């Protein structure tokens, strides 16, 4: 019944008049959530069905999203929102299963590695239990498999395997017949994520060849090198997909360029861990005001409000001393330091007060 408040134009308009909010259906959330958290309308709720350990520091969470969830394409990410100690945290993770699983069983999986010092990933590992409900947001990402079969090379590092798992399972289900190779780099044999699923894929799908390479088992670390690429038949004609730590991605891109593979045949998606805050780190950075389509670089302890004004923007403001919250605005990414508290923000999306926030590295603002 509540979906009518979302989907019918007339009822939605009426709901806005009656409840003074843009999402009238969510007006009843506070009454419905205690009865069943899956009835919430503010976000798409998803129940945790199962949690399985992949390695010592990686787990796969199987979720059952509410039926109205819009689904995804293989290789895409989803925003997950989780309340921890009263605060809502939004983080982006790759979906690690095929969209067919969502279509057939109504289930999706996220495969998540603990980030050292990461609040959300560690909380999910330590406190999230089957039966709990978390929020799902939009799915997005252009890391997508070819529409027409063509030879493909995947290079994955560590937890960078997650979107590729979704892609491989989708391709296997379609019996994708062009050759597909995966070079999967892990630190040690104990760090292989989804080993069983990968071996099952290889057995049932003749076009697929798999090499799992442990980098830290020998005397010296062994990274991606020319020998690995020489072993891939018909490399020049392949479309390449890279996902993993920054070092591996840079190395792979260089080696592929050297072999004459053009940028439009190389697809990357990044999974960089946020850099830990260092005392004495210099302040400032590149600030992007997304709505105004303006990017400026700031140096030193200058507030985002001053930076915005220096860039000829006129954000709403009031007291300019952190009292009135007139200048609150959404930071979509990046780290800022609150001048009043001296605290460093998280890297994700959150509301900040422009007048007392100083950028620390690149920051994206919805302004």
């Amino acid at each position, binding site marked *: 019944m509540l979906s009518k408040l979302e989907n019918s134009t007339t009822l939605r308009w009426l709901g806005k008049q009656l409840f003074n909010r843009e*999402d009238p259906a969510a007006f009843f959330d506070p009454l419905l959530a205690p009865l069943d958290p899956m009835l919430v309308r503010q976000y798409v709720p998803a129940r945790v069905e199962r949690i399985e350990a992949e390695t010592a520091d990686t787990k796969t969470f199987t979720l059952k999203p509410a039926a109205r969830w819009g689904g995804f394409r293989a290789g895409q990410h989803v925003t997950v929102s989780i309340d921890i100690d009263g605060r809502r945290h939004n983080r982006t993770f790759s979906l690690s299963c095929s969209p067919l699983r969502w279509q057939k069983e109504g289930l999706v999986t996220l495969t998540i590695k603990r980030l050292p010092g990461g609040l959300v990933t560690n909380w999910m590992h330590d406190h999230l239990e089957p039966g709990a409900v978390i929020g799902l947001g939009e799915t997005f990402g252009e890391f997508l498999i070819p529409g027409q079969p063509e030879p493909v090379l995947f290079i994955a590092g560590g937890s960078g395997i997650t979107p590729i798992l979704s892609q491989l399972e989708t391709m296997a289900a379609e019996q994708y017949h062009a050759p597909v190779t995966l070079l999967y780099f892990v630190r040690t044999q104990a760090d292989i994520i989804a080993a069983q699923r990968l071996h099952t894929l290889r057995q049932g799908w003749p076009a697929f060849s798999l090499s799992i390479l442990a980098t830290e088992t020998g005397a010296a670390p062994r990274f991606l090198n020319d020998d690995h690429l020489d072993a891939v038949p018909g490399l020049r004609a392949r479309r390449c997909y890279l996902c993993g730590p920054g070092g591996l991605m840079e190395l792979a891109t260089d080696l592929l360029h050297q072999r004459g593979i053009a940028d439009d045949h190389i697809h990357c998606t990044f999974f960089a861990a946020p850099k830990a805050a260092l005392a004495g780190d210099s302040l400032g950075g590149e600030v992007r005001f997304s709505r105004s389509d303006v990017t400026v670089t700031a140096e030193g302890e200058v507030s985002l409000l001053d930076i915005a004004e220096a860039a000829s923007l006129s954000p709403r403001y009031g007291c300019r001393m952190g009292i009135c919250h007139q200048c*609150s605005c959404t930071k979509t990414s990046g780290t800022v330091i609150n001048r009043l508290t001296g605290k460093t923000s998280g890297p994700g999306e959150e509301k900040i007060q422009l007048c007392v926030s100083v950028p620390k590295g690149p920051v994206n603002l919805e302004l």
Partner: protein
Amino acid sequence: MQKLTEAQLNELEKDLNAIRDEVLADLGERDARYIRKVIRLHRSLEVAGRVMMPFGFIPPVFVAATTALGLAKIIENMEIGHNVMHGQYDWMNDPALHSQTYEWDTVCTGDSWRRTHNYEHHTYTNVIGKDRDYGYAVLRLSDDVKWHPGHSLQFINYVLLSVFFQWGVGVHELETERLRRREIRWKDKLPFLKEFARKGGRQAFKDYVFFPLLTFPVAPIVLAGNVGANLIRNLWSSTVIFCGHFTQDAETFTEAECENESKGHWYLRQLTGSSNFTGGKLVHLLSGHLSYQIEHHVFPDLPAHRYPEISPRVQEICARYGIHYNTGSFAGQYGTVIKRILKYSLPDGVRSRLEAQPA
């Protein structure tokens, strides 16, 4: 105003900042649970009020429905809307509780409130000529304003303002006094008037057209109940708000005093320009914890349910600096407000003769 040296003001700033930092560092699950509990209470009361109202032809049900809806509006305006819009819950990062997008169940738009209240009133608290909330440009409450014969009837204006309080607050940003003085033109106020008409229309449509018509055969009963609920909210919120800055000992300031003021001076002005009243937990909830107006003005963006906890520490600081901490019973404080409204309705000559007489 209490005079403190620059050094004392700096110390005062540090002492108050220490309380603020401590609460900020402690914000978490407890605060989130509190505001969500209050929101649940609001939704329950609103649903109960709306559902019972059509059965208001039974007198006790009419009373229950009107009271439930009135309380719902009071709680939504005072403890949820006012406090959320101050940014008290921004740290929760819940889009439904964000200061800049929240819209409340009253005529005044959230945007207009954020400008006139959060910014003007909280920055220029009790500065005559800058804080338009001081007397709402309708009442003469200090001798900074020259008396004229119109003021002698201001008690009637006060009663009218209280009865139609949500409309008064809604139209506050029109700045009629400046329009009269021709400092601004009607044309400048067109965008505001449009917003006011939209939100005022929305509120009137909901309570006075939609819900009565929805239950057509009993429309007059539903209409009467909804008018009653709005009236209850108007009288209560007006009374609470008047007790915040217009009590006998709440001080006023001049623009000159506040030029280039330090944060310490701003704190001092908040402490001496505001007044509290005592009461039970229910009174604090229904007043949106504006019964702790002093704590609210010093820390407008700390979750209001924390004010009772930090109040003893604020009082201790006031005692240490010799600052008067203005509090008293609800009836006592409200009595001094009524006296102030009446007193300043008189010409200065009559008032000073009355004041000279022993009470």
